[in-house]
């Protein structure tokens, strides 16, 4: 095993090999007996620093840490951090890296995790830095795809919804570029199209199609990755109300899709996926959320002995 990274900051840092190591390790954790897992972070302290609240991500990380027998220090409420008293993030991280063996952090400032990795002697795991990166989300997305389909290369994957601002779909696109012959279908309203720069960056490695029409490629797709359209992105509430109702997935779409067709979503959803789909075989999104645990365990176990 030659994992090349000492910190998990951005999916763009990962080689194909690094990704494969994480996915393999995650699969191991799903089969590992509880007692064996519980010794992995024995005696280790992991700081869980949520400068921006995110209950789901935090609980997923802290559960993974506890399952591995590690101890958690930190805060869930940014008001409790000393940056709220005016200390720079750089100073806070320097101090906390003297206490903890690994630091998991989420912060609304973009690039905060990269900065933390520069000043910390201990590994940093980015659990989201504003609109920039959330690499463990991308890794759990890849893990979910691999686990469900047995492969990633060659799949036909639709990305649906807010492709302009959606952090998860941007990162996923760069990550998929490691898997040859994958086809990506960008499905969005005109005003939320995938950024041309991202298409350009990946057009040599992926086959990319763009459409405004969900129905167009539906029969071909192996997987549809839906995302939330965020109200904050719109200056005009009327425009938001119109757009958010353009792509709503319901049971009817399954009349057109393959039997093996699956739907993913980073959750929480608003109205993009009707609950009537939850009990169908297409619903992969709850399984996807659950996969956060083995993936985060894999990352913690890989980083536990890293020397920076």
């Amino acid at each position: 095993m030659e994992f090349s990274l000492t910190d998990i900051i951005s999916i763009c840092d990962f080689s194909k090999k690094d990704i494969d190591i994480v996915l393999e390790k995650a699969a191991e954790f799903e089969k590992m007996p509880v007692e064996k897992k519980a010794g992995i972070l024995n005696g280790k302290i992991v700081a869980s620093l949520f400068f921006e609240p995110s209950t789901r991500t935090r609980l997923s990380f802290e559960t993974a840490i506890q399952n591995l027998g590690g101890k958690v220090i930190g805060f869930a409420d940014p008001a409790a951090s000393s940056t709220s008293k005016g200390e720079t993030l750089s100073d806070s991280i320097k101090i906390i890296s003297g206490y903890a063996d690994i630091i998991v952090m989420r912060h609304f400032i973009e690039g905060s995790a990269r900065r933390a990795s520069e000043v910390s002697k201990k590994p940093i795991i980015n659990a989201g830095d504003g609109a920039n990166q959330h690499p463990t989300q991308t890794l759990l997305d890849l893990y979910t795809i691999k686990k469900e389909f047995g492969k990633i290369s060659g799949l036909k994957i639709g990305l649906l919804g807010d492709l302009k601002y959606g952090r998860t779909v941007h990162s996923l696109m760069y990550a998929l570029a490691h898997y040859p012959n994958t086809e990506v279908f960008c499905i969005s309203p005109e005003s939320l199209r995938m950024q041309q720069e991202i298409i350009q960056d990946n057009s040599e490695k992926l086959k990319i199609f763009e459409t405004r029409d969900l129905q167009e490629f539906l029969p071909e797709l192996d997987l549809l990755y839906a995302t939330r359209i965020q109200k904050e992105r719109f200056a005009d509430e009327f425009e938001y109300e119109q757009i958010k109702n353009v792509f709503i997935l319901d049971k009817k779409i399954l009349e057109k899709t393959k039997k093996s067709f699956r739907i993913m979503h980073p959750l929480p959803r608003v109205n993009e996926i009707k609950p009537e789909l939850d009990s169908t075989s297409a619903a992969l999104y709850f399984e996807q959320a659950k996969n956060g645990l083995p993936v985060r365990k894999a990352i913690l176990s890989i980083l536990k002995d890293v020397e920076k």
Partner: protein
Amino acid sequence: MNESDIRLTPIKNGTVLDHLPVGTALKILEILQLSKPEKAVTIAINTESKKMGRKDLVFLEGKELKKSEIEKIGLLARGATMNLIKASEVKSKIAIELPEKAIGIIKCMNPKCISPIEGLETKFFILQKPLRAKCFYCEKTMGEKEIANAIK
């Protein structure tokens, strides 16, 4: 004015920046903070060029450029030529390349980025096709026009 006239411009010791894309000469003076120079500065804008059709030129008496200044010019005017003049003779001729990285020479225009917020030394990766600068911290990219405005 044609290229043979330009050769007459008297520079005894200093630097001539040649083959600058049209419209970059004034910006270069701004970057070099030469709006009130101590020694002679001559510029030519939109002159004829065999190589590029039209070009700008900058003549800087008594000035040798620092590495960071050359990098900034590289971001604005790829393919420009820098002639070092000593005792009225061309001592060296260097093609100014696009730098691979830009450290401390452009600022990140993303107000949500940690680098302006904590006053960090900026770091950018320079990407090509099309030309972009990607912030090491927030990973936002700036296009050619934005880069020109972001040079410190």
